């Protein structure tokens, strides 16, 4: 792929510009779906974008004695990390940037927003923000291990550390959601926890600690952090769609190229929306659990389930895939 096409891929479609638009669209859909389930009207189509623009223009309030440079830089770092992660996930076809090990890179880039939230909470010099930040990392230690295990087992089965290769493997075999149902469920729950959505919105529980690490965020900092979470949701759904639902590829070859891109994009669209629907349903169907209860659930059941899935995959590799 030549330089101009690569630049178009990264900056326009399906890179950053598309990603931002899709993130706003995702937020709209998430809010609209939850609202309809809760018997509310929900926001109009452009509301997420309008909110973003409005917040960009609002006054930025500095807390007395805070480290201003770090506080400004943290949301930008988080946003940059998740946007970079998106480039390695197949959208219309294979990602041109794919390399062996991009799965690991994407997982770690997705972890950055949580660390940034902790950092923001710590830098805020506010008791609610500090408690929220501590809760955010505590929660991360609980869900991160099962989540990583669940997302790495597809690599074990496909025998490659590249997301693109795993998608290609599913093209000639079955969807990994069928082959690894336990891992798929753990991945969805882990994604919900990573995005800090109910029942895992413990770090930002508004009735307990106001807004947690978000409490002292104002203006463009708040706008960027909200955008970061929206982008994380897109990247997370796209990642789950790629690793477990076969990504944008179909088992047979489509010619010409432009038609296969359209089909690929349509598949990406439908599959990410499916993941979003599941995440939104979990959100409206549950209340928030406590951090000690999450600890129980996470280590007793989620981690066990993920390890069992790894074991099953290793056995399957031995008898079935290699045979």
């Amino acid at each position, binding site marked *: 792929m030549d330089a101009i096409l690569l630049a178009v891929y990264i900056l326009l479609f399906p890179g950053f510009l598309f990603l931002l638009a899709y993130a706003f669209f995702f937020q709209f859909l998430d809010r609209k779906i939850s609202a309809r389930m809760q*018997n509310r009207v929900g926001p109009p189509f452009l509301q997420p974008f309008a909110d973003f623009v409005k917040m960009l223009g609002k006054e930025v309030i500095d807390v007395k004695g805070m480290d201003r440079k770090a506080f400004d830089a943290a949301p930008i770092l988080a946003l940059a990390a998740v946007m970079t992660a998106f480039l390695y996930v197949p959208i219309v076809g294979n990602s041109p940037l794919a390399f062996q090990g991009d799965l690991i890179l994407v997982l770690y880039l997705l972890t950055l927003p949580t660390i940034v939230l902790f950092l923001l909470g710590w830098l805020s010099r506010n*008791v609610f923000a500090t408690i929220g930040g501590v809760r955010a990392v505590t929660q991360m230690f609980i869900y991160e291990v099962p989540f990583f295990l669940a997302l790495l087992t597809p690599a074990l089965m496909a025998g490659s550390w590249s997301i693109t290769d795993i998608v290609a493997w599913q093209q000639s075999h079955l969807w990994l959601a069928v082959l690894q149902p336990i891992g798929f469920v753990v991945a969805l729950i882990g994604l919900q926890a990573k995005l800090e959505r109910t029942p895992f919105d413990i770090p930002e529980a*508004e009735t307990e600690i106001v807004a947690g690490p978000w409490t002292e965020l104002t203006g463009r900092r708040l706008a960027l952090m909200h955008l970061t979470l929206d982008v994380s949701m897109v990247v997370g759904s796209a990642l789950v769609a790629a690793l477990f639902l076969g990504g944008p590829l179909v088992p047979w070859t489509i010619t010409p190229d432009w038609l296969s891109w359209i089909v690929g994009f349509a598949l990406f669209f439908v599959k990410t929306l499916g993941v979003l629907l599941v995440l939104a349903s979990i959100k*409206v*169907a*549950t209340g928030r659990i406590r951090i000690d209860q999450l600890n129980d659930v996470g280590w007793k059941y989620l981690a066990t389930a993920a390890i069992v899935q790894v074991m099953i995959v290793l056995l399957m590799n031995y008898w079935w895939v290699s045979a």
Partner: protein
Amino acid sequence: MAEVVVPIGPHHPALKEPVNFKVVADGETIVRLELDVSYNHRGIEKAAEQRDFVRVVPLLERVCGICSHSHTTVFVKGIEEAMKLQLPPRAQYIRTIVAELERMHSHFLWLGVAAHEIGFNTLFMWTWRDREAVQDMLEEMTGNRVNYGINEVGGVRRDLTTDQIQAALKRLPHLEDRIAKYVDMVNHEQTMMIRFRGVGKLSRVDALKLGAVGPTARASGVDYDIRKDDPYIAYADVPWKVVTDTHGDVYGRTLVRIGELQESLQIVRHCLENLPAGPIKVTSPRAAPKGEVLSRYEAPRGELVHFIRTNNTDKVERLDIRTPTLANWTSVAVSLVHQNLADIPVVVAAIDPCLSCTSRITIVNERGRKTGELTWDELSAHGRAFYRNGRRA
């Protein structure tokens, strides 16, 4: 983490009215907490002494936004007792219907708030939608959704027509379905159960010792309901039972309130179907003879007490209001210690606190070691100075 002081209030998203908890927490565990109430004193008791019996009723209706009918009923009931009036049964029944509808919309509201405190916003939205149906019924009967204005000394101000009764009866089956749905949800929704069970425990002994009232006490197994123990208006004529539970935690309080929703609905249905014919009021004298009355009433939140002293005039000489929230506060402070920080909102919400109704004022003269009261003029002068200076005058 070391011990930190978490200020919850006077302004906090979990609170709908101002109160202040200084929570000392060790990590996520509560070590102790200090309670500071009375941020919103309105001088209603004093204002009530300035108004005659006709004009005092609308004022008392505004003591509480939810229990508006409770405060007027308990007051007119006391005055009628002082005047030795016999009320026509139709008036008693209409008061009972409005009282039980009020209890229903209050409990629906509570269920939504409790769900919201644990982040379960779907139930919050659903119960508040169903609460609209109750408020629509109240609006059709009385003309208002919140302050019904149905009571006056000597009876009620509006009669119910046959059409109104039929319309109200038609709405009840839908509400019955919804309540059944919530019973199902409370018993089967996992996140609700793990957040409610074993949280905010209050034993029967503690409930009695701390003087808890209403659903808070009944959830700890205390069979105490003024409607049964000291029946007033039409409760003696209606078949119903007191709902109690032995869990003693937030889960028990939820079960009691949902059980009361079902009971209230049956009381409303019985009263609507068996509404006696006759007048809706008797003529009352202008003044009440000298005397003291302690009027008790089972408000949605618990026992509400009005102490009324009359003085051969058309005004009360002294009105003392003891709201159920005041009786329940101490039980909250006790049941919160050693709980999780995350449980504060739901344990506080579990007594269904109504904070502004609870604010009272006593003037303490430290040097003379005496307590006293203010006159109406002194109080209003104090209020004006307070807000003009923006600080405690």
